[in-house]
């Protein structure tokens, strides 16, 4: 039993170290591609090749970053708690995506159901959690769609319009992304799930009638 625990720990440490070791090689590839891009002798096809190299570096880099975050959460590296104003956490996340919200003409409604929105939690985890949920709501939306957010002292609910394409049943698993977009690594919801486990929050998702909804319950023992 104990041996299993030790080897699991080693495996996690190994995974995190490996992720960090990949950052310099990725920086080398990206820098060489950017240097190559400055050459004046490139034709369309050369530029396409460089573009693919750069996009692939980006993909690996995102994937790597997500794996680092996951392993940090699993290794309990986000422990400090402070009183967070959840209204602000949500508003800050919405602001990050304001361009994309405007671009797709999404209507956003943010209802504060109760008076008190203060929650003791880790600020980094909370920011990652809420940003991931809002990011999903923005990008899995439809043009002229909507995002309805409701916040009480115990629950954050986000509903958004969706094209109705079925979400994979195992969408909380790692590496499962909804549509086959080359840019997304399919780790967003795995991170959300991992954070909820860590903080003992429960998460519910439902899809019905071209609407996707997610609720996070902060307090499990009312």
């Amino acid at each position: 039993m104990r041996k299993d625990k030790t080897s699991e720990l080693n495996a996690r440490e190994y995974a995190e170290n490996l992720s960090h070791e990949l950052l310099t090689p990725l920086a080398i590839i990206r820098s060489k591609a950017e240097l190559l891009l400055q050459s004046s002798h490139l034709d369309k096809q050369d530029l396409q090749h460089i573009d693919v190299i750069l996009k692939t570096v980006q993909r690996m880099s995102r994937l790597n970053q997500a794996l680092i975050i996951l392993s940090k959460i699993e290794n309990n590296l986000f422990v400090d708690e402070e009183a967070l104003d959840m209204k602000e956490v949500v508003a800050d996340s919405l602001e990050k995506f304001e361009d994309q919200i405007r671009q797709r003409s999404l209507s956003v409604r943010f209802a504060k159901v109760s008076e008190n929105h203060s929650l003791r939690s880790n600020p980094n985890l909370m920011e990652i959690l809420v940003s991931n949920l809002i990011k999903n709501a923005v990008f899995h939306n439809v043009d002229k769609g909507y995002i309805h957010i409701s916040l009480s002292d115990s629950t954050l609910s986000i509903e958004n319009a969706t094209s109705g394409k079925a979400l994979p049943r195992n969408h909380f698993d790692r590496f499962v992304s909804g549509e086959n977009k080359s840019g997304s690594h399919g780790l967003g919801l795995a991170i959300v799930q991992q954070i909820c486990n860590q903080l003992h929050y429960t998460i519910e998702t439902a899809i019905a009638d071209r609407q996707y909804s997610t609720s996070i319950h902060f307090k499990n023992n009312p």
Partner: protein
Amino acid sequence: MKLLIVEDDRELLRSLLLYFHEYGYNCESSKSLRDAHNKICDHNYDCFLIDLSLPDGNGMELIEKCKRRDNSAGIIVLSANSNLDNKIESLEKGADDYLTKPFHLSELNARIKSVIRRKKQAGNLSITFHEITIDPEAKSVMVNEQEVKLTKREYDLLLYFVYNKNKVVTKASISEHLWGDFMDVSDATDALYSHLKNLKKKLKAAGCEDYIQMVYGVGYIFKSK
């Protein structure tokens, strides 16, 4: 302007030397902590690029030394560790900026220019490109002495182009510059395109020449024709 690049990876160092040499910087390099210590003692630099993980120790200890040597020199940390504590510690010790690998060369270039302007030139110099004058303190833009009102994104975009003039900048680096690294490139492309269109329109209306050229599929270059 003189740069000291402290980086132990030979290929990354070569990329940095080549790129910044072309921008007219006088670049020197160190691959170890010990060599960097000596160079910092013996020479003056305007800006330091410091990798934290060096074969003979942590680059963090160079930060205080650089600051003591010349408080007006810029210090930018290049780290292969995305740990927030690392970043906070570097900034507390006196680094001016912190960039996690893999960074874009054009982003690093913009950071260097911004740090040097703030520290070496006491922040009071405006940036000029032909008929365009940017005042980074007031975040204002003049074209032929007439103010052009830009949104925050348009302003950030223009400044990024001017800092990286005459070089191809990738769409990925621009979108990361504007929105940070949580956005997928494909998701940022539409928004980038619309800001770019508006920026071009406003500059043209002010009588500015169109310096922004598209580089097939990959990005843009800002230069005179």
